[in-house]
């Protein structure tokens, strides 16, 4: 594992999702900027200084959580429900932040690092919220939705009918049962990836990896049959 000199260089290389191993991380811990150092000093303190810093941080997290739920908008959460979700996300994030203070390496501003916790809490809570009123059950399988999902024009059905049949064949023949389940849930049923991860007692990374492999297999099958061009470079 290499660690270049300075923050600008890439760090180590390790495993990931594709068929190749990649890992990018900052080269080394950096000295925190003055404001971040002040946050750390006050939070590590005891007594009124720490209490004041915790209250200020909590206020920041609530503001960010509320704005983030509103920004995402998808589930139309508002009023007391929005407040409740924002306060829960902020409280959980604050707990995580204070228990992980020692893991802050000064690679970013402290507030950016802290805000990440509340953004991820909001993300997770919205994933759970999805299953309160799911639009489609997990095991539904309506292939008529596929043309719409990929913007196929109904007026041009004669052109894409064969392609659609080829996609379906590739899904049936090329994917493992688990990959197929993930493809159907996310692509046909439009279930959010985080919500699916919860339902399958899995995690975002594992579901993404499964879908990544499914996409690669499907593309290869469609390219082999002349429906798509071969992905020579592999980069988007």
């Amino acid at each position: 594992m290499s660690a270049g000199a300075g923050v600008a260089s890439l760090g180590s290389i390790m495993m990931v999702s594709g068929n190749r191993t990649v890992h990018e991380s900052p080269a080394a811990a950096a000295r925190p900027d003055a404001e971040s150092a002040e946050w750390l000093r006050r939070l590590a303190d005891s007594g009124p200084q720490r209490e004041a810093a915790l209250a200020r941080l909590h206020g920041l997290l609530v503001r960010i959580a509320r704005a983030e739920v509103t920004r995402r908008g998808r589930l139309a959460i508002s009023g007391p429900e929005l407040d409740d979700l924002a306060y829960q996300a902020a409280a959980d994030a604050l707990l995580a932040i204070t228990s992980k203070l020692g893991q802050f390496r000064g690679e970013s501003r402290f507030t950016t690092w802290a805000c990440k916790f509340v953004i991820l809490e909001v993300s997770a809570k919205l994933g759970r919220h999805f299953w309160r009123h799911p639009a489609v059950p997990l095991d539904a399988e309506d292939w008529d939705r596929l043309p719409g999902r990929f913007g196929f024009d109904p007026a041009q059905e004669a052109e894409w009918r064969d392609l659609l049949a080829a996609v379906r064949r590739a899904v049936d023949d090329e994917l493992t049962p688990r990959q197929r389940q993930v493809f159907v849930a996310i692509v046909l049923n439009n279930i959010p990836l985080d919500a699916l991860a919860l339902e399958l007692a899995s995690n975002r990374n594992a579901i993404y990896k499964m879908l990544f492999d499914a996409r690669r297999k499907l593309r290869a099958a469609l390219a082999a049959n002349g429906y798509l061009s071969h992905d020579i470079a592999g980069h988007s």
Partner: protein
Amino acid sequence: MNGWPELDRFLRTDPRDVGCAQAMDMLHVYVDLVVAGAPVEERYPGVAAHLRACGPCGEDFEGLLAAVRGEAH
């Protein structure tokens, strides 16, 4: 070339893609670099590739970026 751009885009995978776990580990660093105007896609191409391809991680990135920019003003 093919006539199915959305399907093509969805099925196209980038071998540099670092996956969700690595991208989320790096997210705060990545966002601060974006805010600072650094050439972040060159510095972290695998994270950039992932954030383009993964809806939930892309959403978290947009959320953190909005939060940092909002708090700065």
